[in-house]
């Protein structure tokens, strides 16, 4: 029986052994011995320990001792060396054999080969490690949750991100970490996913390191072979930066829309400040603008700063001493003052004001135009020391950029408004309107002044028909022809026509138009319409006055002219009498000289006519009125004459250079007579240069103080000059060097000047030409002006003056 038992024990499918109560092994079955290759003698006692893997030995011994001490049943997993040296895993099971008293009398043990199981487990563990390393290495925050929502696992990034251990996270209730505003939405999404088993997708705020950040949570289920959901993978992506960027973009869009829709600049600047104050909480913002001169800062916006602070900054000069904003504007670079208490700059000015208002940090950033010009400064203040973060810097960049757009837009708008106003004013002043005409569609755009000229209602669209109703009936065919020709050949247009207004008044217009093609190749005309009416009327008035003045220039004092008149009349009379005498003698001859008599009689008639013409010509001189004397500003009188004769001078290509003294005293005299003299001198000078082609036809008219309380006026030409012997004779009545001239101008001029107690003379220039000058006394203090001058004053002169003063 014992043998049989022994054989059974040897054949048991395990390594069986027994030990004494003190742990000394006293039996090992055959399988044990076969497996280890150890003999009974070698293995009994403590010899069996040599078969235990050295790494497992200390643990085994400790365990074995505690088992022996406690007498309890225990299990251990230990590697045993096989006879061929290979170790395999075994489960050591020991069981105490005890007396009724409880004292252990023997230990029975069995080692079961669990190597295959252990290896399988090992593989599984390796799989799991690999899985975890993959999940841990995943570039996202990954959590595994049970279908009930409990956290099962979180990857390393997840733990690092939230700064907690897996255990801690498992302990905390899941909902706490979500933003209260988002919680309901998160739970609803989770419930829906759990019900449907479909992947879920949600954006929510999650607390990390004490602050909420935006996350995108993407959950998808893991199912077992039966299709039941066993786990949810949740991938969390931090989208806080993206969310902020989106919000910033939305703000930027809103602000740019404000700019585009023409909100006032101050409203936009205020909104900019508020955006920053909302986004970076705890700060105060301001925008200062550089004024037009570029030398001072002026208030732009500061919705949250006290007025007393704003007022103390407004108007500060742009330099490095006025404060951080002025410095930033001056240097065109950002100025960061992290802690005003530690700040050494602006020590006695700005810094104290800022500190007094409780400000501790100030970051000033210039707002630059596209061309790099500093338009203003954006400032961020804090009431605690602070350095801008990267995110704050990028916000500042964004805001200053929008501010620059807003300010530039506002400045451009203002410039445009100014330029439009200027243009409208210029059009009004010059009575010139403009228009745009698209020949294809007959679309017409008019400027305000054009409407004014045509006197048409600007609320009704302009059409060619409407324009035609204003065109003078006599000019209408020509007008229509011009329009049609322009439409056909696209050439530039220049023509004049008249308007007839409803009140029958007539306007003279001049049109200048330039053709071009628009983007689509359509013909369009841009043109100017000038209202010439005033000019035309003034020209007519001027021409009339000039002829009247010229007529008067031939009228002079009787005394100076009596001899001249006699001379003019006696010449033809002499011819008449001589011819008549000759005629009589020829008739009385024998035989009578009939042909000679006829010829002399013919001459008699001719000379008689000539005498009659002289009388007619001189009759004008007899119609005269007495003149008053008055204080005359010779400069002003000269300017009027220049205005009067300018056209004549220009026609003769004369360059008029006035040099009128600033402090010229007044003179006493007859203004019109003096003007006749000036006119005479100007026209003479112009005539003297009519053949000059090798040098500029320059005419200098000069007024100046002369010796002995006198005033001198000189007219210097670059003409043919004077004949040396002829200088004095120039001033004799009827002396002339001109073809067709009556020679009365200079003699008349001299007599006028002499009646003003002055004198008139001529002198050759150093260079070409001559200078004619007169010098008359200045007005004496307390002069009565009672002196009567031989002069003419007519209504025409008054009209002339009136006309000359018109613009």
């Amino acid at each position, binding site marked *: 029986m014992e043998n049989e038992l022994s054989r059974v024990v040897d054949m048991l499918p395990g390594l069986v052994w027994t030990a004494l109560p003190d742990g000394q092994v006293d039996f090992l079955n055959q399988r044990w011995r076969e497996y280890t290759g150890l003999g009974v003698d070698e293995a009994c006692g403590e010899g069996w320990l040599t078969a235990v893997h050295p790494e497992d030995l200390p643990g085994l011994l400790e365990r074995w001792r505690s088992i022996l001490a406690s007498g309890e049943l225990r299990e251990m997993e230990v590697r045993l060396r096989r006879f061929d040296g290979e170790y395999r895993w075994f489960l050591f099971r020991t069981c105490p054999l005890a007396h009724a008293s409880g004292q252990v009398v023997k230990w029975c043990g069995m080692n079961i080969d669990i190597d295959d199981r252990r290896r399988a487990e090992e593989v599984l563990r390796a799989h799991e490690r690999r899985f975890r390393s993959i999940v841990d290495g995943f570039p996202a925050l990954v959590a595994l949750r049970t279908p009930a929502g409990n956290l099962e696992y979180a990857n390393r990034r997840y733990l690092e991100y939230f700064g907690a251990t897996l255990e801690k996270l498992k302990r905390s209730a899941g909902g706490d970490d979500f933003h209260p505003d988002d919680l309901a939405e998160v739970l609803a999404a989770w419930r829906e996913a759990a019900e449907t088993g479909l992947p879920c997708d949600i954006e929510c705020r999650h607390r990390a390191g004490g602050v909420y950040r935006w996350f995108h949570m993407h959950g998808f289920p893991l199912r077992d072979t039966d299709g039941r959901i066993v786990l949810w993978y949740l991938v969390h992506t931090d989208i806080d930066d993206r969310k902020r960027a989106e919000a910033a973009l939305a703000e930027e869009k809103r602000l740019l829309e404000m700019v585009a829709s023409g909100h006032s600049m101050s409203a936009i600047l205020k909104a900019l400040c508020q955006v920053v104050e909302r986004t970076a909480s705890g700060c105060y913002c301001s925008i200062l603008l550089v004024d037009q001169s570029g030398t001072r800062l002026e208030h732009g916006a500061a919705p949250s700063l006290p007025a007393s602070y704003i007022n103390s900054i407004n108007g500060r000069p742009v330099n490095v001493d006025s404060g951080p904003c002025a410095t930033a504007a001056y240097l065109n670079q950002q100025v960061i003052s992290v802690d005003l208490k530690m700040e050494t700059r602006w020590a006695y000015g700005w810094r104290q004001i800022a500190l007094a208002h409780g400000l501790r940090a100030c970051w000033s950033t210039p707002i630059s135009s596209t061309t790099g010009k500093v338009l203003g400064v954006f400032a961020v203040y804090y009431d605690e020391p602070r350095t801008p973060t990267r995110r704050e810097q990028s916000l500042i960049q964004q805001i200053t950029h929008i501010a620059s757009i807003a300010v530039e837009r506002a400045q451009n708008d203002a410039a445009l408004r100014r330029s439009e106003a200027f243009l409208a004013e210029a059009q009004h002043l010059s009575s010139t309107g403009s228009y745009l005409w698209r020949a294809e569609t007959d679309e017409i755009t008019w400027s305000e002044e054009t409407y004014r000229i045509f006197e048409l209602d600007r609320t009704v669209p302009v059409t060619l028909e409407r324009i035609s109703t204003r065109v003078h009936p006599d000019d209408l065919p020509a007008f229509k022809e011009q329009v049609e020709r322009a439409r056909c050949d696209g050439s530039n247009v220049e023509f004049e026509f008249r308007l007839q207004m409803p009140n029958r008044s007539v306007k003279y217009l001049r049109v200048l138009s330039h053709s071009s093609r628009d983007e689509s190749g359509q013909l369009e005309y841009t043109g100017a319409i000038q209202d010439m009416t005033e000019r035309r009327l003034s020209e007519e008035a001027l021409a009339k006055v000039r002829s009247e003045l010229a007529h008067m220039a031939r009228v002079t004092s009787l005394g100076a002219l009596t*001899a001249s008149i*006699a*001379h*003019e009349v*006696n*010449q*033809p*009379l*002499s*011819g*008449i*009498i*001589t*011819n008549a*005498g*000759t005629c*009589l*003698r*020829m008739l009385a*001859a024998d035989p009578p000289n009939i042909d*000679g008599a006829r*010829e*002399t009689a013919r*001459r008699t008639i*001719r*000379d008689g006519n*000539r005498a009659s013409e002289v009388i007619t010509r001189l009759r004008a001189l007899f119609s005269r009125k007495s003149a008053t004397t008055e204080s005359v500003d010779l400069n002003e009188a000269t300017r009027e004459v220049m205005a009067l004769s300018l056209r004549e001078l220009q026609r003769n290509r004369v360059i008029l250079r006035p040099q009128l003294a600033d402090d010229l005293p007044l003179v006493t005299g007859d203004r019109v007579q003096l003007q006749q003299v000036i006119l005479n001198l100007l026209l003479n000078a112009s005539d003297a240069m009519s053949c000059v082609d090798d040098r500029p036809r320059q005419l200098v008219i000069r007024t100046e103080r002369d010796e002995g309380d006198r005033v001198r006026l000189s007219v210097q030409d670059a003409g043919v000059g004077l004949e040396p012997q002829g200088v004095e004779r120039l001033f004799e009545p009827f*002396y002339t060097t001109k073809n067709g001239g009556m020679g009365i101008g200079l003699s008349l001029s001299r007599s006028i000047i002499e009646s003003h107690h002055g004198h008139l003379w001529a002198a050759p220039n150093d260079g070409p030409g001559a200078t004619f000058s007169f010098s008359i006394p200045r007005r004496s203090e307390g002069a009565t002006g009672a002196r009567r001058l031989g002069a003419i004053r007519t209504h025409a002169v008054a009209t002339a003056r009136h006309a000359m003063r018109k613009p």
Partner: protein
Amino acid sequence: MVVRSLVSVVDDDESVRESLPDLLREFGFAAQAFSSAEEFLASDCVCRTGCLILDVAMPGMSGPDLQCELMRRRKEIPIVFITAHGDETVRPRLLEQGAVECLFKPFSDTALCEALNAAFRVH
């Protein structure tokens, strides 16, 4: 053949230059007209002229100027001045300087005839 005495007329007025030579021919003289003193001096008539009818006021060289010039050249031609300026003070001065006569335009044919007779009588 009768050689007629030559009377030269110097006057810038064309109607005088036209009418006077015809009248002088009626009187029986040969006549030649010049529009200026310069033209007369340049002509070949200076030596042949028996009497000079001379306008006082002319552009360029005046009548008295020509008188002086002739005296300088020792050409003693009797001169009858004519003038359209009815200035009585002119006449005595001209006569004093050797003129035969000074006639104020317009003058009659008889006054001219007498002056010419006087001129030719002197010489």
